[in-house]
């Protein structure tokens, strides 16, 4: 395979099980997908279907039980999280918990830069640029996490992920703790980011309506398997799998 044609991320037959022997429980079985540069993949499924585990595997926070993961054709299966975090940054649902409560946002972001870029030269400019890109006042970066609203902390956490210029963002239910107006704000800025930087994303959510507004492709997960994958139009207009139909049926649009 020629390297330059390789997709940004390729996941081959990965599986994950917890426990061994009779007590073992397989939570992910035989997942395969490719993600091209600049593409946004939405992953949808109910609680407990293995969405978050999948992100943990991709970012090497947990070891895979089986299978391979390739970044631009390079097999990185079994690497340490420190090795892959320059490529991938994970944004979690509860961002206030992801920030150190005793540090200002700026101090937390410096930590990231120190760890990944090695030098802090120009750190303030980089941080200000990212905070600005997320539509926040740069003065807010000098506050503590608890002094910001939920939506603002979430945007700060995206900004923190981006200061080290990763190739890809892994978003784990980033809007489900927020109310609709803050959620819409985040989506707007993520959309801007895509337009300006061509950012690649894996967007995990349980909200099919939200994903259909934003993602290039949507994968529907059920019981540790991807049961259907396609563009939003394919998924929404012509769902093939029964579970997809069930999900579509459960979306409560404003009548």
């Amino acid at each position, binding site marked *: 395979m020629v390297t330059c044609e390789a997709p940004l991320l390729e996941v081959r037959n990965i599986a994950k099980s917890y426990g061994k022997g009779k007590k073992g429980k397989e939570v992910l079985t035989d997942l395969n997908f490719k993600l091209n540069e600049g593409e946004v993949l939405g992953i949808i499924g109910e609680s407990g279907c293995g969405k978050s585990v999948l992100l943990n595997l991709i970012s090497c926070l947990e070891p895979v039980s089986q299978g391979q993961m390739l970044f631009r054709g390079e097999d990185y299966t079994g690497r340490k999280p420190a090795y892959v975090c320059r490529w991938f940054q994970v944004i979690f649902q509860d961002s206030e918990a992801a920030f150190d409560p005793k540090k200002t946002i700026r101090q937390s972001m410096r930590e990231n830069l120190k760890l990944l870029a090695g030098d802090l030269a120009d750190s303030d400019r980089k941080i200000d640029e990212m905070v600005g890109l997320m*539509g926040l006042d740069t003065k807010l970066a000098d506050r503590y996490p608890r002094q910001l609203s939920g939506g603002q902390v979430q945007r700060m956490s995206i900004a923190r992920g981006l200061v080290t210029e990763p190739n890809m963002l892994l978003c784990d239910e980033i809007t489900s703790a927020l109310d*609709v*107006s803050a959620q819409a704000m985040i989506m*707007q800025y993520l959309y801007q980011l895509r337009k300006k930087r061509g950012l690649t994303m894996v967007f995990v959510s349980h909200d099919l*309506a939200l994903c259909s507004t934003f993602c290039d492709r949507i994968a529907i997960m059920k019981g540790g398997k991807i049961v259907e994958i396609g563009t939003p139009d394919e998924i929404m207009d012509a769902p093939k799998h029964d579970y997809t139909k*069930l999900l579509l049926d459960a*979306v409560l649009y*404003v*009548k």
Partner: protein
Amino acid sequence: MANNLLEINDLTVTYGDFKIITEVSFAMKPGEIVCIAGESGCGKSTLIKAVLGIKQLGAHIKKGSIVLDGRDITHLGVEERRQILGTQIGYVPQNTRGSFNNIRSYDVQYQEAMRSHNKKFNRVEAIKCFNRLNFPDSDKLLAYQPWEMSGGMNQRMAIALAVLLGPKLMLCDEATSVLDVTSQKEVIEELAKLRNELGWSILFITHNLGVASHIADKLGVMYAGRMVEYGDIRKVLDDPIHPYTRKLLAAIPGKDRKLPVGLEGRPPLDGAEWEGCNFVPRCEYCTDSCKTRPYKLQEIVPGHYASCTSGRSV
């Protein structure tokens, strides 16, 4: 007005010096589902806490009254309040783990709840009730402990307990917002069914207007402690009057698969920054007079109230 189940008149609630709810009034008829929508921090949950009895929760009612079925319950004592909670007012919290002790079986906890309300616990009744609500495995459910259940199932068990206690009024505080879409739909359908069968009245707090549109008869929109719009659900959703309601509607991902439009900023923490409308800093239609014109909920169309009509397309 005598046949209203719940009447809230001119209610003002404060935490210390902070006004959380300012002059909110509305009434619920028996068998009605009223949804209150708004962003985090607008006072939706405090409204429910006020109805439940707020003294233990740190806030107090400055002004106004809450009337349940013709009886003023604004300043009830602890003992009197205990008698109406559960049997007359039921409550489903947002946190699905909040209603039960995680490591004791439902059986024990159901018994305890019934006993503390001086009611007899009957397992057969309980199982009948689970069957009516279409729970899977209904005869085994009582033996489970909450940690073995999904969040959605736990929430439904809390609703079932409320059914056994038989209240007239249910208060649901974001009861579905931590659930995923499939369980959310199940819970919503259950509540609607219970209303039809038992004639429950439900006060449903949510920030999701999609949920509201599927269940509610009336919709109230709150902003920074004030009710800015109130009316029949169809009227409010089809012809939103207040600029904030329109913003809220635009923030919901719709069927057209267009990116939702957000609303910058956050509601002011202290409800009374100035005399007039407190949506001014985030409003695109505001004029100088908005800051001084006192807040008043007016009947714009029969059965449809709003405190501002700026930018309304007619």
